[in-house]
C-alpha cells in the first residue's frame, strides 16, 4: 500500500486556483524530489499536505497511511507521522526550543497511546538528535527560531524532524540559503532518517542537494500540475535546460 496517494488534487486560496490536478504516489522507502519554477505551486502542495487552513481543496483526494488525510486536522497529521519542514519557519518568541520540542514529541506520543517523556529523559534523546545537526545544547534554550539566521532556521527544522521521526517528511526548500557545510549537515540529517518504512519529499530548486539526497523520482510542477516525472537524471536535464521546454509543452497540452 502506498504511504501517500494524491489523486487529482485541486486547491485554491481566496478562490484563486493554485493546484490544478496533482496526482502523486509515494511508497515507503522512496525519496521524491519536486522541482519547478517560482510560483508554480510547490509550497502550496506541501502546505495542503500539512493542513494549512488558507487553502481550500476543491477536488481530489489524499490518503496517508491508509487514512483520509483531508479529514484530519494539522496536528492529527503530525500524530499520524507527517512532517513539513517549512520554507519559512515561524518564530515563536517566549517558547524555548527544548520546551517546544518536548511538547510536540509528547503530544505525538500521547496520541499514539505511549507514555510521555519527562524533561530529563527527553533531554537525553535531544542530546542524541542534536548530533544529527551537529549542534551544541545552547540552541535549545533559545526561543523557537527567534532571531535565528536563515540557515539556522532550516537546520532547526531538520532537528525537529529528527526528534519527531515522521513516516513522511516534506522538505520545502530546506536547502535554500544554506552554506556548503550546512547543506552537508542538513543532507546528512535527512539521510539518517531514510529507511524502508519512511519516505521523503524534497522540494528544491537545486540539483546540488540531490547529489547528497539521491532521489528515486523527480517531478516537475508547473502551473499547479505535474508536467514531467522521471528518475534522478531529470534533475540534471533541468539544470542544463531550465524549465522553459517543459512549461511551454504544458501550455500546449
Amino acid at each position, binding site marked *: 500500500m502506498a504511504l501517500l496517494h494524491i489523486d487529482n488534487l485541486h486547491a485554491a486560496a481566496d478562490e484563486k486556483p493554485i493546484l490544478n490536478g496533482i496526482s502523486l504516489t509515494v511508497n515507503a522507502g522512496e525519496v521524491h524530489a519536486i522541482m519547478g519554477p517560482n510560483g508554480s505551486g510547490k509550497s502550496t502542495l506541501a502546505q495542503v499536505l500539512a493542513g494549512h487552513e488558507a487553502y481550500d481543496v476543491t477536488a481530489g483526494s489524499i490518503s496517508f497511511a491508509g487514512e483520509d488525510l483531508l479529514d484530519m486536522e494539522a496536528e492529527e497529521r503530525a500524530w499520524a507521522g507527517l512532517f513539513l519542514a517549512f520554507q519559512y519557519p515561524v518564530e515563536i518568541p*517566549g517558547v524555548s526550543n527544548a520546551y*517546544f520540542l518536548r*511538547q510536540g514529541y509528547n*503530544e505525538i506520543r500521547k496520541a499514539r497511546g505511549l507514555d510521555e517523556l519527562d524533561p530529563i529523559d527527553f533531554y537525553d534523546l535531544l542530546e542524541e538528535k542534536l548530533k544529527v545537526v551537529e549542534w551544541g545544547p545552547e540552541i535549545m534554550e533559545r526561543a523557537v527560531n527567534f532571531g535565528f539566521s536563515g540557515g539556522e532556521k532550516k537546520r532547526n527544522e531538520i532537528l525537529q524532524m529528527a526528534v519527531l521521526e515522521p513516516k513522511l517528511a516534506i522538505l520545502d526548500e530546506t536547502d535554500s540559503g544554506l552554506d556548503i557545510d550546512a547543506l552537508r549537515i542538513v543532507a546528512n540529517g535527512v539521510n539518517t532518517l531514510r529507511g524502508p518504512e519512511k519516505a521523503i519529499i524534497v522540494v528544491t530548486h537545486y540539483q546540488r542537494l540531490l547529489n547528497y539526497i539521491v532521489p528515486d523520482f523527480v517531478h516537475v510542477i508547473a502551473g499547479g500540475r505535474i508536467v514531467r516525472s522521471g528518475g534522478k537524471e531529470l534533475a540534471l536535464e533541468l539544470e542544463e535546460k531550465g524549465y522553459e521546454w517543459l512549461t511551454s509543452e504544458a501550455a500546449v497540452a
Partner: protein
Amino acid sequence: MNATATMPFADLIATTQASEMTGWLADLREAGAARFAEEGIPTSRDEEWRFTPVGPLGKMTFRAPAVSAPLDRTALSPFAFGDGWPTVVLVDGRFVPELSRLDALPDGVVVTSLAEAIAAGEPAVEAHLGRTATADQTPFTALSAATFADGLFVQVSAGVVAPTPVQLISVATDAAAEAMLAPRLVVLVGANAELSLVESYVTLTEATYFTNTVAEVHLGANARLDHTRIMRESEAAWHIGFTQVDQEQDSHYREFALAMGGRLARHNVHTRHHGERVETLLYGLYLTRGEQVADTHSAIFHDQPNCNSWEVYKGVLADDSRAVFNGKVLVDRIAQKTDAKQTNRNLLLSDTARVDAKPQLEIFADDVRCTHGATIGKLNPQQRYYLKTRGIGGKKAEQLLTWAFAAEVMAEITQPAVRVGLEALVHQRLDELTS
C-alpha cells in the same frame, strides 16, 4: 450632619476620627476626610476614571472588618516566599505579630507594623506619611488618609544593602466580608542603600470586600528598590491601590506588578524624579476573566534632565473581562536627554473582552527620546499553525502561546524565589483562562 451621614464611608471615617489621636496624625486624618468629602467617589465623567466603573463603591456600605478567626502560619504558606524574610502580616487589615517575622533583623534595616512605628514616634514616619502620597492625588488617597488602619514601615539606612527581601502580606479572610481594608506602606531606602520588597494582597475568602491601599516610597540618592506587587484578591473584591515613589538623583526603582484578582482592581503607580540620572523601570502583567476589570495607571514625572524610564505592561483577557491601561509620561521643559519608552500589549482570548489603552505623553523638552506603543490582538494564527504541524493543537497550543506572551514580562522578576512562585501561579491561571 445629615449630609455626611449619607456620604460613602461616613461611618468608617467617623469611627477612625473618634479613635484617640493627636497632633500630626489627627491633622492628616482630618484633612483626608475633608478632601474625600469634597471629592466623593469619582464617576465616569472624571477623565481619570472614565473607563473604571468605581461608582458602585459609593452605593455600598462597607464596615470595619469583623474579628478574624485565628490563622495558622501554614495557611499563609502559599503566599509567602523566602524562608526567614522579614515579614509583616496583616489579617483583615490588622497586624498579626504571631504570623509576622520581625526578629533578627539585619543591622540598618527597620521593619515594623506602621501603627507601631507611629506609636513609637518614629520621626521618619511623620516626615513621609501623607506627604509622599498626598490626600489631593485621588479621592482614594484622601480616603486612605482618613481611614488607614495599619501597614508596613520599612527603613533601610544609608549605605546598607538589605540581605533579603522584605514582605508585606495583606490577607483577607471571611471576617473581611462587606468590610473595607485600609493598609498603608511607608518604605524609605536611604542613600546608597538597596532593598527588595514584596507587597502581596491575597485572599482566603471569596467574599466581597474593599481594599484601599497606599504605598509611599522614598529612594535616597543612588538607592535601589526592587519592588514586586502581587494583587490576587478575591474575585468578588474591590481593590484600589496607589503607589507614589519619590526618587532622588541616581536612584533606581523597579516594579513588577501582577494583577489577577479582584472584580475591579485599579493600581496607580506614580514616580517623581528629584535629581538627575534617575532610572524608573515599570513592568506589569494583568490576567482577567469573567467580568473582572483590571486598571493600571502609571505616571512618570520626568522633572529632571538625564533620567530614563522603561515600561512594559502586558495583559491577557478572557471572557467578558476588561482592562484599562493609561501610561502618562510627563517631561518637564528642563528634563533634557530624557529617555522614556512605554509598551503595552494585550492579548484577547475572547471576542467579548475589551481593552481601553491610552498612552499619554506630554513632552515640554526638545532634546528627548520618548516612544510608546500599545497593541491589542489575538493569538497569532501562523504560530498556531506551526505548532499544529508539530503535533501541538487546540488548547495545548493556546496555552503555550499565551504563556509565551506572558513569559517575556515574567522574566523581569528579579528575585528568583518570587519568579519561580509567580511563574507557577501565572501558568496555572493561564491554563484556566484558555480552557
